[in-house]
């Protein structure tokens, strides 16, 4: 189910080079956090991996299949955006059921899958609510339920908790970590919060200032001491932020 992801020398220019060249591989079932200063091209990289944006250079392979701009590979990719992107005129259940339609499931199967994933995201009892009637955290959880419901081979998350308060953020981090343990999906998670990445990721990738390259790739499997890891990453990100603000030219 979960698949390997290979990012090979991917670069992207929008008038100016945003991503210089980024290469990394992700094993099936890994939880990768993509870190970096604001505006360094994390989201762009995620969009390229998701097939929402064509790369200027290089290529992305998902389970060995190329992801092109129009993205018609056979793998299933779920995306949780910074905003929930729920359809406001549909209930939470209908929102999840909608994305199951292209998979050819019958109405009953869609309903069951939707309810099961909403329950997994802690939304049991709220299936028939419209997005405007629930809190922002619940909406984001519904978006996660929607992404999980298609049983994605790869789950992409773009700062999904950015709009949440500290408390809800912690709860959601634990939830995502739990869901990942239970479902074993390959996850690529973009964040600029170092403590968040250290708390949930198995592999941490720190991007440099724009144009982005990989500054550091760390395995977060418990061998490294957490406090020191957070300190190191903080030092790195501060250097990159300064570089991005033009204090030092590109290395």
């Amino acid at each position, binding site marked *: 189910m979960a698949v390997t992801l290979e990012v090979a020398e991917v670069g992207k220019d929008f008038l100016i080079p945003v991503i210089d060249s980024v290469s990394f591989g992700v094993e099936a079932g890994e939880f990768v956090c993509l870190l970096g200063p604001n505006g360094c091209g994390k989201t762009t990289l995620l969009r390229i991996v998701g097939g929402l944006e064509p790369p200027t250079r290089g290529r992305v392979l998902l389970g060995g299949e190329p992801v092109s701009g129009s993205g018609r590979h056979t793998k299933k990719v*779920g*995306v949780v955006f910074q905003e929930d*992107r729920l*359809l406001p*005129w549909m209930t939470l259940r209908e929102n999840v059921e*909608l994305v199951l*339609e*292209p998979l050819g499931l019958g109405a009953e199967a869609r309903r069951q899958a939707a309810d099961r994933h909403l329950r997994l995201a802690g939304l049991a009892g709220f299936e028939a609510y*419209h997005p405007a009637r629930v809190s922002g955290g619940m909406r984001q959880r519904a978006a996660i339920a929607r992404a999980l419901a*298609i049983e994605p081979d790869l789950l992409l998350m773009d700062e999904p908790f950015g709009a949440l308060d500290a408390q809800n953020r912690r709860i959601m981090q634990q939830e995502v970590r739990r869901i990942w343990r239970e479902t074993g999906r390959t996850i690529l998670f973009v964040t600029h919060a170092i403590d968040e990445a250290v708390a949930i990721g198995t592999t941490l990738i720190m991007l440099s200032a724009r144009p982005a390259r990989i500054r550091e790739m760390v395995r977060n499997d418990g061998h490294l001491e957490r406090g020191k890891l957070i300190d190191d990453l903080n030092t790195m990100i501060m250097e990159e932020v300064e570089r991005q603000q033009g204090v030092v030219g590109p290395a």
Partner: protein
Amino acid sequence: MSARHWATRLHLPTLGVAAVIVAGWVLLSWRYGAYVLPSPLAVARGFAEIVASGEIWRHTVASLGRILVGFGGAVVVALLTGLAAFLSRTARGVIHDFLSVLNSTSVFVWIVISIIWFGLSNWAPIFTTFMITLPVVASNIVEGVANVDRRLLEMGDVYRLSGRQKFTAIVVPSTLPYLVVGMKVGFGLALKVSVVAEIFGVTSGIGYVMNYSREILATQMVFVWALVMILVMTATDRLVFDAVSRRLDRWR
């Protein structure tokens, strides 16, 4: 419930101003005579007359029938332009340009042209109504289609919704409020325009009977039919469009 609350609910301030206007009206009608300004009583009596004789229905139904055909046709064509605007960006540009031309064409142009083309028949007011309301309804729909949240469409792409699924699940619901507003404004315009067009060539309808009343010097009936127009407009606004809008807003 406070007294002030009830005063607002019953539109008491509005009624107060209306009372002053009616008083002024009575004074003016005494001063200038019934031909120029019939008294409120004469208007009320005239209204009771057409209700009793059933004439009110004959002309209102005739006008509404023409509006239904002309305005209904405009809504259908507007929906098609909306679909075209959704399917093709080029079509959207072309439609936009044509609508701005139509929007800046005077009612009178269409009245004169429709009389030339359709003669003195039902089709003259119907065509005029169609041409005047089409750009109003269509530009609302096209604007709605253009304003569909691209982020939602991208979400649809991520989950590989087909073009039809995106259309029914995303485009239609986000365009509906624009359609309702367009129809509400369009219907009001249709009523005003078709009544003007009815002055020429037809022998039924509110516009016809108003002009006829003027010719036979029954000025009070001109006022009565104006009142009928106002009632029709208010009733459709309250009963149809407000109800539809409320239903659309259920999920907010």
